[in-house]
């Protein structure tokens, strides 16, 4: 089965946005939102900080790749080539192994979406966002879509809003705990394409959800762009864990936006493993809107040759007794560049709030770089803010010890790096932890 990358959809113009909107059968408000976003995109300048995005040529990025297969909920009806790709990635084996639901997106289109009957019966919704817009959840989506991330938030948020396609909608009603994780997998296959999926998650009061997102792409000669958007609404005393293992090809520009708003007593956990990509700019953000709301971030990024991973976290404490805990780890090898950027804002009202950041870097050679750029804006003196950062190397003693157990230097290094990233992998379900460990092994064995 051939997926067509229509030339008509290459670049960005009113015509293209119009075509996408028509093709998607957008309701009027969505069509207007797309055009407003396009206007915003044209006005907003490129980011003034971070990596050089000069290699990104929007006019040559396909903003939409049409799949020649319709979305299905029966795995056997998914075209065999796509099935093979996903089978290699362990999907839907992982569905059989205890996931509440699985979604799979191939280029711009969702190709598969399924939720376990028992989970659906509790009122939990997990479906393609495009379909959801035309369902009974239409109003709910209209109320929440691009509300946490305004269309003019930054240039790539505007781009996303103008050409978005695919992605998932999750709704967990009040008091419901989804026992097993929901999973969504993105696979890029078309060369020179952009992927602009939108994930909208609404978790009501006292509800609980673990959502896993996996991404991967093969390598092509032309640059690809990923500018997705994730918006998460965490209700009072609700809990959402959002886990991501990203493994992009080494020419990908990964400029993704993730944001959550957390109400009183609620909690958002970001678990992130960032691998691959040529350039990543990724700063999940939490707005702690209600008293006692919490954000925890546990992330690891691995930058190898030719990669610049500019990642970090943003958190806004807007209410009393809110807490944020940030544990960031980065690994740099063969001249890779890691930048950890954090922004902690504590508003005047957010008295007795606490924020703690621990940022550790492991440098595997003297060619690589690792920078930490913390930014604090604390408007009350009744808050506690702490930041620790350190850069380390693998010691000769550790290598010799592992050698005395029979491990070659390469194996020993890979094992130590895996140990360093263990705080992330132990938060992930088994098959994702295994995938992350494999990625580390692969990155470690790759030479310049």
């Amino acid at each position, binding site marked *: 089965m051939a997926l067509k990358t229509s030339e008509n959809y290459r670049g960005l113009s009113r015509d293209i946005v119009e075509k996408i909107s028509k093709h998607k059968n957008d309701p009027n408000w969505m069509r207007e939102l797309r055009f407003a976003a396009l206007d915003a995109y044209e006005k907003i300048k490129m980011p003034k900080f971070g990596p050089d995005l000069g290699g990104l040529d929007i006019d040559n990025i396909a903003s939409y790749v049409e799949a020649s297969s319709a979305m299905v909920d029966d795995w056997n009806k998914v075209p065999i080539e796509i099935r093979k790709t996903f089978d290699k990635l362990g999907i839907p084996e992982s569905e059989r192994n205890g996931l509440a639901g699985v979604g799979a997106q191939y280029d711009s289109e969702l190709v598969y979406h399924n939720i376990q009957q028992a989970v659906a019966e509790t009122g939990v919704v997990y479906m393609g966002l495009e379909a959801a817009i035309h369902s009974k959840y239409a109003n709910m989506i209209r109320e929440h879509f691009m509300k946490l991330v305004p269309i003019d938030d930054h240039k790539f948020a505007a781009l996303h809003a103008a050409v978005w396609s695919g992605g998932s909608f999750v709704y967990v009603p009040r008091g419901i705990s989804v026992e097993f994780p929901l999973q969504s997998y993105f696979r890029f296959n078309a060369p020179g394409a952009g992927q602009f999926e939108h994930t909208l998650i609404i978790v009501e009061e006292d509800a609980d959800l673990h959502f896993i997102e996996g991404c991967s792409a093969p390598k092509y000669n032309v640059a690809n762009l990923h500018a997705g958007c994730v918006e998460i609404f965490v209700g009072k005393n609700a809990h959402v864990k959002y886990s991501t293992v990203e493994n992009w090809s080494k020419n990908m520009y990964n400029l993704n936006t993730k944001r959550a708003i957390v109400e009183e007593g609620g909690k958002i956990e970001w678990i992130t493993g960032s691998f691959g990509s040529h350039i990543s700019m990724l700063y999940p953000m939490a707005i702690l809107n209600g008293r006692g709301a919490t954000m925890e971030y546990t992330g690891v990024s691995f930058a190898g040759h030719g990669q610049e991973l500019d990642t970090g976290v943003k958190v806004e404490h807007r209410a009393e007794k809110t807490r944020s805990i940030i544990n960031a780890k980065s690994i740099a090898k063969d001249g890779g560049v890691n930048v950890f950027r954090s922004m902690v804002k504590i508003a005047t009202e957010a008295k007795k709030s606490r924020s703690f950041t621990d940022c550790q870097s492991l440098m595997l050679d003297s060619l690589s770089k690792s920078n930490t750029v913390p930014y604090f804006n604390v408007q009350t003196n009744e808050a506690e803010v702490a930041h620790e950062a350190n850069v380390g190397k693998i010691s000769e003693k550790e290598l010799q010890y592992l050698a005395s157990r029979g491990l070659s230097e390469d194996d020993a290094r890979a094992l130590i790096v895996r140990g*360093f990233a263990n705080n992330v992998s132990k938060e992930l379900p088994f098959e994702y932890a295994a995938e992350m460990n494999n990625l580390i092994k692969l990155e470690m064995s790759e030479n310049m």
Partner: protein
Amino acid sequence: MTNLLEVQGLCARSGDKTIIDSISLNIKPGETAVILGPNGAGKSTIARAIMGLGDLHYSGQIIFDGKDLGKATIDARARKGIFLSFQSPVEIPGLPLNEILRAANEARKKKMRLTDFQLKMAEILEALDLEPFAGTRELNVNFSGGEKKKLEIAQMMMLEPKLAILDEIDSGLDVDAANKLSKVLFDYQKNTNVAYLIVTHNLRILHKLKVDRVYIIKSGKLAAIGNKELLKQVQENGFKNI
């Protein structure tokens, strides 16, 4: 029976300084040899030289299992069947002991099902009075000095070497724990025919073991070779008259 380990004229120098000088010793499979001597005599250097560790300049010959180790790397020596229990085991944050052992088995092309591995590890930890989940914890992080030493022995028992070099294995252990460890080492040797090279300045760890040969090292040189009689002499009078 041929020797498992033959060390001939081993010297170690750091710059102009001689740390050990012309040391020769040998061990057969299933035997226990002991290197005794006062602090700073160079005992640990012998242990480290056999394992190939350190940045000293070594000369002399080390033959293991009929082959000259020559410039063999540390990991190659380990895979040939040499194990060193470290005097000061390192801590590696985030890395569980079990992962090291499974990788070590893999490096030896030794296939072991996960459940068999877990069962064996559980038995070993129990025999050593260690907590059942010690293997899933980060290597040596938040363990006491004595526990770290026992974890070294646990690794030996999992990896099943032909020769185990045990460097000051009883430091940090109380009298009862040292006695118990001595018994564990005795039983393990009886079951596997492992050869021990025990480096110590304290005799209590030898309590339950059959000692085949004793080497006394003083100021980097071999001062005496003997058997249990020599051990007794040291026990009564220390190293002074040797």
